[in-house]
């Protein structure tokens, strides 16, 4: 990766997030401060309503903070317009969802190609990148299958291929193993580890599963909108 310097990829600074429902103000994030450097693999844990999804959305540029600022890859997201954010996301962020969220009418190949259609790449270049991405996730032979013809684990792998097709700096994953059986979940986690170690992707992953969190490099714990712990994971016993 080109970002060899030590500038953090993500800087969350004094961020508050409030939701207004009728007359009640619900504060989801309290004065949050966080930095992620290039090549980080962070898991985000916490009970429902702790604010982890909100934090993820803010970092992914899907939502804006009530106060404070979020810098990702040097871009001040709070001060960026919606349409510019959309363009920014297509370049810098890859998404992995719990429900895979593939487009049912498109083949695996076309699903992966979808974010690339937003770039000025030529058709042949796109084809190259799609193939590379699908081979990385091990689905080079399933390119013409529709989502309904794939298993849950395979669908999630297509979804990962879609997330990395544009070679984004940051990958955000919202409970990527939440809907999978243990075996498929494990495969997905291994894949994500490879993305981090082999390809140097910065990953931030929301999860409920302590085993999934254990595969990350760094664990963040949220409770009631506050960061309660931030720890490095010891990986001595981990095998490839």
């Amino acid at each position, binding site marked *: 990766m080109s970002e060899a310097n030590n500038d953090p990829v993500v800087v969350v600074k004094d961020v508050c997030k409030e939701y207004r429902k009728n007359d009640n103000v619900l504060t989801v994030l309290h004065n949050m401060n966080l930095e992620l450097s290039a090549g980080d693999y962070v898991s985000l844990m916490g009970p429902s309503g702790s604010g982890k999804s909100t934090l993820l*959305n803010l970092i*992914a540029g*899907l*939502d804006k903070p009530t106060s404070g600022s979020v810098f990702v890859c040097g871009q001040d997201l709070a001060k960026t317009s*919606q*349409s510019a954010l*959309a*363009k*920014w*996301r*297509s*370049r810098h*962020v890859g*998404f992995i*969802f*719990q*429900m895979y*969220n593939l*487009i*049912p*009418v*498109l083949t695996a190949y*076309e699903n992966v*190609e*979808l*974010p690339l*259609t*937003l770039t000025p790449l030529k058709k042949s270049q796109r084809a190259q990148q799609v193939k590379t991405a699908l081979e990385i996730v091990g689905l080079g032979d399933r390119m013409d299958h529709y989502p309904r013809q794939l298993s849950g684990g395979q669908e999630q792998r297509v979804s990962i291929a*879609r997330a990395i097709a544009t070679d984004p700096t940051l990958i955000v994953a919202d409970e990527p193993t939440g809907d999978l059986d243990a075996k498929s979940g494990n495969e997905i986690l291994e894949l994500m580890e490879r993305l981090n170690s082999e390809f140097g992707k910065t990953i931030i992953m929301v999860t409920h599963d302590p085993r999934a969190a254990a595969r990350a490099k760094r664990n963040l714990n949220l409770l009631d909108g506050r960061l309660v712990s931030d720890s490095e994971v010891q990986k001595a016993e981990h095998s490839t």
Partner: protein
Amino acid sequence: MKLLKYIWRNVTRNKLRSLLTIMSVGFSLALMTILYGFLAVQDVTEREANKHDRVVVLNKMGFAAPLPIAHLEKIKKMEGVVSATPFSWYGGNYESKRAEFALFGVDPDTLFDVQAEVNIPEEQLADFKKIRNACVVDQQLAESMEWSIGDRIPVEGTIYQADLDLKLVGIYKGPSNTGSVYFNWYYLDDLLQASGTGFSGNAGSITVKCKVGSEVALMCDEIDAKFANSENATRTRTEAAFSKMLTDMLGDVQSFIRYISLAVVFALSLVTATAMAMSMRERTTEVAVLKAIGFSKNRVLSMVLGESFLIACLGGLLGIGAGLGLLHLLSSVPAAAILFPFPISQLIGPWLFGLIGVAGLIGLVSGLVPAIRASQLSVIDGLRQVV
């Protein structure tokens, strides 16, 4: 992969729904094609009528008032007039009921000079000029009535107290189906004079062929000026104005057709909009994912609009095709042939593109609300719906 491919996949995603919407648009556009085809006939008639430098002379009072045959000779002698023939409507009964074809008393010597675009074989024309009770008929009429040369066509007068015993001597062919039988005006007049009922000498109307390229509107004024102070003042119109007058008689039916069409378009927009709204509601999460990936508002907007546009256009093209087919069928039914004197190919004109445009517009208008809602969708809300 182009956006278009994705749009097309979306169209075919819920095949039943798209098919129903397409059929709904199709049926309505077929109806509009038939209605507007009917109006287009009038336009083509007027356009055709403009080509031949002809004017039509009537009594100022209209069809019912007599136009003396003496006017004919006077008009023929006028400057700029090539030829002229009486055109006298003979409302007749054939085989004891109102004839399904039109009968006109004409001057055999000049008819085919006035109607130069109509063709008849030389020797048949010679017979028409020679034989007093001869008549000539349109080729298409002869076919549908199964008449052939030498047949007798007896008709019973309803306006005139004179029955005609016509002999078919010629078959003519022109650019349009006139559905008419032409007989010798002087044959009828002889019979009327003999009966003494006092209706003789009435030319009905006179069709005048002017010099090619002449100012036919001025010619109308000249003719009217000539007879202004006579007992039977005239009102002369260009052939186009004359056929417009016949069209105008349809009165409010024309505007009625337009109002109905307007209502149809409105109803269709609602129908298509409902279908689109249903589709988009089912795809909320998908739209949210697209937006998360980085699809811009405009891209989402154009995707949804493209989908409804495509559906409406498909329905439109199908309907217009079916409508033209039905018009073709209709024009081959003898009773309706009078309404559609031209082959359907001649009717093809800008109005068809107008109808395709209407279909496209229905698509765009109906897609607008669902498209805007999709493009405004908040990614977070959209994604939350599913989990």
